[in-house]
């Protein structure tokens, strides 16, 4: 059986559920590293309910099916996870599979394996070819998109810097006796650090990385008595809240989280909101200021039944450079408050429009970016991450000889090439000759 591969089998985008599929050697073993259920003996072609550890101590309910070879689509051992819809969660699951020994499937690879294992008849081969081309084309289009987009240019820049560095190292290998200034290791590390930081930044810029890992940080602010704590409860609703007390902390920094459409949403600094003592609620603004800083988006809660107060105008000033959703609560009462920009009307009491608000949180923070580049391709993000890992490895090798360092940097270069399409070794050699005056 060939090595395990994984991919998201349902289309990227909206959908009630997502299916992550693995095929190949040891897929069940890989699956059971991250999926926990009561059943001890997993039988082929049965569905199991359990919890998937999407990140450390964060569990997501999901279903798992195992198909033992040869009774599967590909003819190999296959495991499928059915998870809640939403791309980010699915990506997180794919990522966990990758961490545990899978590699990303290439375009049409599941079908290709199915064909090679005799699961698909010869006359279907043409169809598979179509599939490979369609998927590659899709990839090509999205590559094109990112080439035009910011991320694409940034990856290209990053690879170019690396090409230059490699040329400089390689020329010192191939032309040790020429009269240019030979590169020294200190300079190599400085450059690698620079590239690595760029790359890391890229991973962060591509947002999904960041939000996948940490979720969206949401702060609830508003003057006293607008119903912050009831909004909080309505948001958490019946979903099992994940309550954490972050390092060393006072109750003030309590964070409560839930998943919506597969994205983790962290309501930060909720201790203050939960405090029923009026005196504390009055401390509202100063307390809020700190949480505002940490938030990716702020829910500014208003009372529909009252006019805008001076205090609220003050708060609005503090929110100037932030992503804000104006949440107009208590629409079960008569609305007196004037229309606000980008507002969402809800009633925490009657649990009205709560889902709408959740959608807004995700779409305001993530989806806009999604359309530009975040979700271009889960493979791309994995590539950046693997480049990051390799470079961090290199940075630890201060004592190692330059040939080994060059070998690892070449791997980084080849990784980035999977995104940019520049994989010709000749590029480096050409640069050697254009940059350095060499020869006999």
């Amino acid at each position, binding site marked *: 059986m060939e090595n395990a591969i994984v991919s998201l089998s349902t289309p990227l985008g909206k959908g009630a559920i997502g299916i992550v599929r693995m095929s190949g050697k040891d897929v069940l073993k890989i699956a059971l590293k991250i999926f926990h259920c009561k059943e001890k003996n997993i039988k082929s072609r049965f569905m199991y309910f359990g919890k998937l550890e999407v990140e450390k101590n964060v569990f997501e309910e999901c279903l798992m099916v195992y198909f033992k070879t040869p009774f599967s689509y590909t003819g190999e051992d296959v495991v499928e996870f059915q998870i809640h819809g939403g791309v980010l969660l699915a990506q997180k699951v794919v990522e966990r599979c990758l961490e545990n020994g899978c590699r990303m499937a*290439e*375009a*049409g*690879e599941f079908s*290709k394996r199915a*064909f*090679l294992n005799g699961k698909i008849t*010869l006359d279907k*081969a*043409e169809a*598979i*070819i*179509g599939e*490979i*081309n369609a998927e*590659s084309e899709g990839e090509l289009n999205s590559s094109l998109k990112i080439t035009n987009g910011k991320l694409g240019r940034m990856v290209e820049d990053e690879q170019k810097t690396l090409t230059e560095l490699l040329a400089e190292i*390689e020329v*010192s*290998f*191939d*032309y*040790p*006796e*020429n*009269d240019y200034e030979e590169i020294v290791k200190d300079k190599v590390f400085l450059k690698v650090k620079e590239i690595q930081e760029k790359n890391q930044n890229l991973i962060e810029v591509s947002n999904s990385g960041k939000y996948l890992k940490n979720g969206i940080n949401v702060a609830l602010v508003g003057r006293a008595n607008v119903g912050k704590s009831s909004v909080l409860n309505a948001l958490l609703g019946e979903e099992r809240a994940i309550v954490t007390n972050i390092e060393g902390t006072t109750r003030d920094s309590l964070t409560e989280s839930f998943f919506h459409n597969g994205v983790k949403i962290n309501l930060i600094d909720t201790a203050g909101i939960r405090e029923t003592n009026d005196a504390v609620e009055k401390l509202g603004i100063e307390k809020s200021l700190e949480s505002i800083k940490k938030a990716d988006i702020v829910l500014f809660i208003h009372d529909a039944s009252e006019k805008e107060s001076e205090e609220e105008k003050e708060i609005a000033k503090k929110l100037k450079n932030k992503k804000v959703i104006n949440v107009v609560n208590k629409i079960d009462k008569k609305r007196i408050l004037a229309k606000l920009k980008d507002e969402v009307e809800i009633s925490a009491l009657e649990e009205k429009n709560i889902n709408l608000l959740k959608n807004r949180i995700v779409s305001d923070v993530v989806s806009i970016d999604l359309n530009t580049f975040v979700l271009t391709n889960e493979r791309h993000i994995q590539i950046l991450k693997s480049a990051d890992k390799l470079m961090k490895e290199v940075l630890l090798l201060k*004592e*190692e*000889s*330059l*040939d*080994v360092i060059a*070998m690892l940097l*070449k791997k980084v270069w080849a990784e980035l090439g999977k995104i940019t399409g520049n994989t*010709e*070794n*000749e590029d*480096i*050699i*050409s640069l*050697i*000759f254009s940059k350095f*005056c*060499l*020869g*006999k």
Partner: protein
Amino acid sequence: MERFDAIVIGAGHAGCESALALARTGNKTLLLTISLDAVAFLACNPSIGGTSKGQLVSEVDALGGEMGVNADKTAIQIRMLNRGKGPAVQSLRAQADKNLYHQEMKKTIEKEKNLYLRQGEAVDISLDKEDKIVTTSVGLKYVARALVFATGVYMESEIIIGKTREKTGPNGFKNSHGLSKSLEKLGVKLVRFKTGTPVRLHARSVDFSKMEVQKGDDEISTFSYLTKKPIENKAKCYLTYTTLETHEIIRNNLDKAPAISGEIVGIGPRYCPSIETKIVRFADKDRHQLFLEPEALDTQEMYLQGFSTSMPSEIQKEMVESVIGLEKAEIMRDAYAIEYDCIVPTQLNPTLELKTIKGLFFAGQINGTSGYEEAAAQGIIAGINANLYLKGKDLLVLKRNEAYIGVLIDDIVTKGTNEPYRMMTSRAEYRLLLRQDNADLRLTEIGRKVRLVNDERYQIFLEKKKKLKEIEKVLNVKVKLDARLVKFYEAHDENPPMESVRYRDMLKRVGITIFDIKSEFKILEEYDYNLLEKMNIQIKYEGYIKQQEEDIEKALANEKVKIPDDFDYDSVKGIRMEAIEKLKEIKPLNLGQASRISGVSPADISVLSILVKRNKHGN
């Protein structure tokens, strides 16, 4: 018409290796050369080896070739390049005595019992079924089933010095006229390439006191695994520089430089530009370095490396005299550019056999490469394969992970080349495995299998393997943790271990070498430097070597999927036209080679893999 088993045309570095490989594997072989005085002639620089080329020489040697032996015999200075940069990129470079090199190789060839060395110019090739018939300029005809073309830069060559163009070969030897046409008649596509060589100066006219001396290494290695006597460093080289005046002279005379004025149409190498090209392209550099190398011990001629030019003779003189230390230099030979015909190498299989004519092989500069070592590397493969062809056996292809030779041949036959191709370490993706020190471990078994490695070489090889095993055993012994061990670690700036350790574990520390262990613990004293160094590298770089081996494992999967000879690319749906054209031209032997063709995408390969497998299922 005299019959041979095999004929080799050209007795340069490729031809000599081919002919020797053929004769040594029991074939009656004719080695035809335009001049007996040009056998294994070092037409350009008087040196063998250099980065990645040193590896090529040792690989030729490990397979049972002659270049390493001959270079060791005639070396007058030797150095290991890149010592501080890690084992993957270290290479040997020797100054060779040009006259001795030629004489010694000629002697070796004359001694070979199945080998017939004959002066004569081949002017025509014709085919009669499997037979190849070679006709010489004086009307003699030779026939054989296998033919190796190793004509170097001689085909329709022209020497250019300023306005003067002469239809001769290098160094005033006769050129070869007629073969190009004959090849074209056989359907072989040709291109015109260019290269050049610098001036030769009389040593008595050089002011060495103004130059920096370059000496050989103290710790001496050899190219060949057979060489027992160490190389003596008998010669010195010198480093000097051009001046602003040199650049001024060149700039003022650019209109007379054929390379720049467009009179030379042949494509020259980027890595070996003439001095005028350097000055045009790197205008901001105020000096360029030049090396003076002795051509041989019995001559006063010196080679001025870095000063290749095709300027008129009188300007060359002015240019030379503007260089530091060369104010009164006497030029003995002019620098010149040379244009010549070579074949488009993508017409060859990785066996170096022409795709369209069985039993016809090409090796050396005629394939668009440059360099003695590149030529010899192809020569030995062409020779080995011509023999295997004659014996009706499967031909040999060295893989990219086995040898620089494999990289070199795969590159030229898969990607082709737009300029004379030079080997570089940067071209090898698995260079931590393709080291100077382990060529025999990589290739001697292969050389033995094709019967080129004789008993003497094989015994030496087995002996060495045995010794390496012994060394490994010694290194597996544990040393208990005591004050001495702690002191040893501290003396080498390493944190002492927490428990007893094996010697090999100590080697994993950057600060500790096998030689440190040897002198501290009084072990391994009966083993020589090279063996210990090899083991030192093997253990220290174990982890990285393993990484490369894993990469190779992945790459080999595609290499194993053969594409049938008669695969019908025209009936293929789902592969882009551009890729199909390329695939039809190159006719890759397997998916791995196909994936290295520029312009063929991973998706194309994916589709191709399905079609190839479908074909195999008989549909």
